């Protein structure tokens, strides 16, 4: 009964949305691979979360509470993850490709002397073999991998996998687990959460309005802000725009910025460089407003207008205001 091991680094009272995606995919995968779904819940102040994992369909929860005032160190997490992996000896280990897994996953795989594929966007099982799909070259190409050793370790791109809306709840068996031998070489001094800046957070936003170099300059950025305000949207920008200092670097969407997956992604003056497209492959509906009809962004768009944004956007914003009035 090999099964699937999920590693959820968590803290606080609520499971993160990405943990729900992780469980959804883990449960689905275990139906194909066979065996139980075990979840390692590791962090501070997490006891309350074990039951919610059962509610999502997890069979067994391994609970590792660091009992520290600050989040546990990467080395402590690696040590409990290794202990959990040795105990469950699963066919596959899944983590989230975010702060809780993008570095822990590879470290764990090397510790277990097995193979890993990071930032996966799809998983499937063919003839008992796990096939992992991930974008490479900044999203210009798609690669399919399999891991030739056991277990297969995979980190899942946030928001690329569906949360199971109707999970089969389980009475999850809960068991405490501790680190095997964690070194004290890394000390977490503090964790600083940045204050939300009014609008919705870029990474979680359902609607995003993004501006590119085509806007001409920082003086025109208010057009992006106004449109975003009408739609209750977050704002984003290309690297060219953040590099030029028109807006804060935190707004950058793309390979070296945020990866987003909104329902609606509206671009103004964005040509669609690979670097930018890499961050929006999860966007469900892209709207392109650009002067150049041959711009790459139109290949990814569902709706588009070719022309000077200065004439299009004010009328677009005004009409949306009326519609949403």
């Amino acid at each position, binding site marked *: 009964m090999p099964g699937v091991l999920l590693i959820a680094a968590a803290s606080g009272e609520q499971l993160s949305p990405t943990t729900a995606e992780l469980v959804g995919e883990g449960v689905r995968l275990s139906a194909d691979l066979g065996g139980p779904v075990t979840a390692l819940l590791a962090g501070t102040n997490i006891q309350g979360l074990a039951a919610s994992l059962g509610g999502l369909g997890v069979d067994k929860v391994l609970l590792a509470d660091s009992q520290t005032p600050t989040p546990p160190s990467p080395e402590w997490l690696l040590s409990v993850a290794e202990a959990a992996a040795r105990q469950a000896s699963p066919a596959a280990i899944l983590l989230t490709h975010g702060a809780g897994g993008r570095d822990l996953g590879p470290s764990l795989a*090397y510790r277990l002397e097995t193979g890993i594929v990071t930032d996966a966007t799809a998983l499937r099982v063919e003839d008992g073999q796990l096939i992992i799909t991930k974008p490479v*070259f900044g999203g210009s190409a798609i690669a399919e991998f399999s891991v030739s050793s056991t277990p297969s370790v995979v980190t899942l791109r946030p928001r690329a996998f569906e949360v199971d809306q109707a999970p089969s709840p389980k009475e999850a068996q809960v068991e405490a687990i501790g680190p095997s031998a964690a070194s004290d*070489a890394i000390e977490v*001094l503090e964790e600083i959460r940045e204050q939300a800046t009014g609008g919705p957070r870029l990474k979680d936003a359902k*609607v995003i309005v993004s501006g590119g170099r085509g806007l001409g300059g920082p003086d025109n950025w208010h057009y992006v802000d106004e449109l975003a305000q009408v739609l209750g949207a977050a704002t984003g920008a290309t690297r060219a725009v953040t590099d030029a200092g028109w807006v804060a*670097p935190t707004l950058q969407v793309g390979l070296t910025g945020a990866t987003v997956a909104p*329902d609606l992604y509206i671009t103004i003056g964005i040509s669609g460089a*690979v670097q930018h497209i890499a961050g929006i492959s999860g966007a469900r509906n892209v709207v392109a407003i650009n002067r150049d009809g041959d711009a790459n962004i139109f290949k990814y768009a569902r709706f588009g*207008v070719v022309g000077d944004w200065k004439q299009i956007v004010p009328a677009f*914003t005004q009409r949306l205001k009326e519609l949403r009035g």
Partner: protein
Amino acid sequence: MDIVVTVKQVPDPDIPPTHFKVDEAAKKVIPPAGVAPVMNGYDANALEAALRLKEQLGGKVTVVSLGPDAARDTLKRAIAMGADAAIHVNDPALNDADSTTTALALSAAIKTLDHFDLVLCGRQASDTDGGQVHLGVAQHLGLPAVSPVQKIDDASAESVTAERIVEDGYQRLKIKLPALLGVSSEMNEPRYPPLKGIMAAGRAQIPVLTAAELGLNEASPKVKLRRLYVETREARVELIQADSLEDAGKQLADKLREARLV
């Protein structure tokens, strides 16, 4: 402080999408003519961080790369930027190495050095987008690893204080040395090589190490690339055409409402 920086030569990530081609049979990217490969962006950030630490604390910066003959250009650029020495791991047997083998080769090359306090790596490479080799190097060298790091606050002979990026913020960590950090682009803006550096790079002798010299046995890849392809995108865009662009803007809003997107 003696610092090792791992660098990888990658296809220029700014290749226009129209020039990006894949040989599906060989499962390889076809390098576009006339576009020279470059140093991986995050590796350049790691090198810049190393050079600034050296300027502050003294010591030596050594760059290590695994790659074919052409990778020498990237090592030369690192020397031009200010690195003191370079090691080139070059062996046809390692040309298609997976991340496990790459991590093993780089760590074996680093072990040939007499001394180091800190290993700095880019958080990931822009070709494979894996972000895993540096963590493998840390495991092989038995070093604590922190990644991705956006800032190094404080560094001494015994420890560094660094900021690790997490969701919506960062953690401040104190890390005992020797250690390995995965550097992110937030950390700095890599310098352009000064003329003096370019001349030094021209003269530099870069030692080459082979798999046998590093004591690497037959590689046993753990991950198999089964398929590499470019998603064919047929433009399915619905272009809004109207008498005026203002009108098109209005109609676009109506379309989005119709599609229940707003």
